[in-house]
């Protein structure tokens, strides 16, 4: 059989980045959620055409404080996430667990800041007018992503603490990082659209 066989037994059983199939799966998720957010963003601009003033009269410009804090937290969180990513590739169980714990705290901080934005910074309710509906939806969708990813990080941390730990858990940590980069990065245009655009449009 050696003549007509391609022996793959020497190949590794773990891979990171685009070599791993799960990485492509997460890329698909990112494409789906990125398109969905983009479509809500386009809807925001489409609805803008129906208004003379944006935000409509009686609704203040969205306050920047909590949202900018959110921006700082999310962008800063890329650093610990990148460290977790590197530690995961080195398959270091305890440091990865600790790093994920930090990420969970940062995710909760972002969600707390988001709650402040809903509670006051937007200055309107979702059922006030179409402007209110679309900004609540944009922020809500993004918050749902932050929440999902934070829960994933927490679950993975629990797995790493309790065990038994498999090597593929580190690949999971690696793709969690990939997903988190997307979430942090996509907050920049979302923030610009919701908080900065009304000041220029």
């Amino acid at each position: 059989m050696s003549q007509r066989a391609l022996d793959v037994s020497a190949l590794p059983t773990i891979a990171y980045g685009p070599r791993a199939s799960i990485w492509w799966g997460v890329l698909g998720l990112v494409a789906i959620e990125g398109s969905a957010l983009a479509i809500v963003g386009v809807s925001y601009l489409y609805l803008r055409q129906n208004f003379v003033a944006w935000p409509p009269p009686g609704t203040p410009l969205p306050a920047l404080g909590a949202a900018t804090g959110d921006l700082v937290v999310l962008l800063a969180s890329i650093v610990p996430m990148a460290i977790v990513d590197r530690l995961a590739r080195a398959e270091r169980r305890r440091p990865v667990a600790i790093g994920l714990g930090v990420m969970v705290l940062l995710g909760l901080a972002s969600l707390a800041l988001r709650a402040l934005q809903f509670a006051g910074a937007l200055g309107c309710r979702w059922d006030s007018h179409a402007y209110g509906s679309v900004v609540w939806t944009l922020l809500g969708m993004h918050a749902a992503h932050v929440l999902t990813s934070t829960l994933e990080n927490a679950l993975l941390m629990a797995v790493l603490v309790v065990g038994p730990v498999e090597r593929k858990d580190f690949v999971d940590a690696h793709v969690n990082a990939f997903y988190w980069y997307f979430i942090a990065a996509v907050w920049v245009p979302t923030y610009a659209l919701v908080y900065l655009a009304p000041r220029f449009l």
Partner: protein
Amino acid sequence: MSSTVGPTSTLAPGEAARETLDRAALERVWSTPPGFLGWLTSASHKSVALRYIVTAFGFFALGGVLAALMRLQLTRPESRLIGPDLYNQIFTMHGSTMMFLFAVPVMEAFGIYLVPLMIGTRNVAFPRMNNFGYWIYLFGGLMLWTAFALDIGPDTGWFAYVPLSGPAYSPGKRVDIWAQLITFTEIAALVAAVELIVTTLKMRCPGMSLNRMPLFVWAMLVTAFMVIFAMPAIMVASTMLAMDRLVDTHFFNPAEGGDALLWQHLFWFFGHPEVYIIFIPATGFVSTIVSTFARRRIVGYPAMVLALIATGFLGFSLWVHHMFAVGLPQLGEAFFTAASMMIAIPSGIQVFCWLATLRGGRIVMRAPLLWALGFIALFVIGGLTGVMTAAVPLDLQLHDTYFVVAHFHYVLIGGALFPLLGAVLFWLPKMCGRMPDERLGRVSFWITFVGFNLTFFPMHLLGLGGMPRRVYTYARDAGLTTGNVVASAGAVVLTAGILVFLANVAWTLRRGAPAGDDPWGAETLEWATASPPPSYNFAYLPTVDGQAPLWSTQERPVVTGLRTDVREVLITDGVDATPDHRHRLDGASVWPFLTAVAATIGVVTALFTPWGVTIGSLLALVTLTGWFWPRGAPAHETVEQRP
């Protein structure tokens, strides 16, 4: 049965013994648990896909019954048989069922069944997700049909235009049911799409570089990408609609800055690609069938691939041709007319390549080929009427009339159902190991073909005669009676044809002659294994060196060294398919089923209260934790590390 690919392979006696041992080990690891539990938990792409196909045809039958009811009502003018309220539910259910519960799922199901076999691997990339997608799909369909049985069927058309479908003009939960059906559909379709993309890109057998991929796999790949970029639009739109109805947002309320046209843009940005999501896999069927029975490769493989990709892109640039009657700027009209007409070029390329293939081949006339040939004729008609409706001036007359009904049934039945039925006959031997009856296959084709044209050709004339779509009746003196009577008579013939076809399938399953590995003499890898394929697909994964591995006279090496004690597959490079690493897939699990139940509880509760989202999420959190919680991996994969 041979473990190598190519007609001349043989095995030495020692190797045969080894193969027997390997097969036994693989069967132990890959087989689905028996009984009801196995049915719930299966992680096999084949059993999940077969379930998908059977369920989809079940919904097809239900949708067909609705179509028959509509034809019955329209046979006579001013008929009182079915009232307008029920009729509106019926045509909405017919459209939603056929599009969301039959056409898209059945195409993706064929992809899930065939793609791993065609690219020479053991399963799809995420087997548990695959199972989850099926349950979500099934629960979505059951929800819709339960609602219909309770007189809460949606009644605003499969396009659910606001403000008619909005909170002010559609009280009750009918439209909410429709919006939540979209949630189910989109989850199932997206899961299958990601599944197919990752499987195709990362799990092709060594040697199957992108330029050697079978055209059917290309078609499924393009389709999956279209799903990924089209579905989010309807996901956003239906969420907006549900929120307008449930928590009083104003997305579509013109008095508060919302916009009815926003819905149309979002819906058709999904809705038009949707048609290609159904049609492109069908072209994959046709390419495969034509190539097999013309006994030669498809003429112009690169042109075919480019045409598929071009269709995928162009499909997103012509949604506005569903909206010409709203009144658009002139430049916009010209652009969208041009884009809509341009898509005829890739479609034309495919048709001409099939014709050239037949011309240059040596044709074996068998029933599956007959369905493919019928497709070519009907699809050309549907394509030409499509060009007619793409021109703004003509569309202003034809839009929303029975002409359009005729057009899209030519495209969807002629262009997708005919190839699908051909594909059922073609792959039935592979799926069940038995040959369908040739004569019944031909008879059912001719009855269906005649019945189809009798039903839908007169509808062109009805449209020109001024009959709008979605009317439950028409006046006695409107001059529409003859056309409607002919169409209804045609529907009887069409139904008879489909019934003969189904009888053939039923006969095949019980009495069909044994098929053997490759009864048609086809070219792709699924024919290199047993019929039906073993749970692990191939004892040794094949390698290929060309587009038609089974027609190659070269003997090719097989892959060895994959573990047989766990569900291990080979992950290869995305472009040239060189081996990269070995990967262990998850096995059967009940958690995907439970997660689907959790999601369903959440979605159904969300019909009544926004808390449904929270309830569903919390339940899903529990089941997902169960899903991903480690349960002892094989020793070589656990980490022996200081904690």
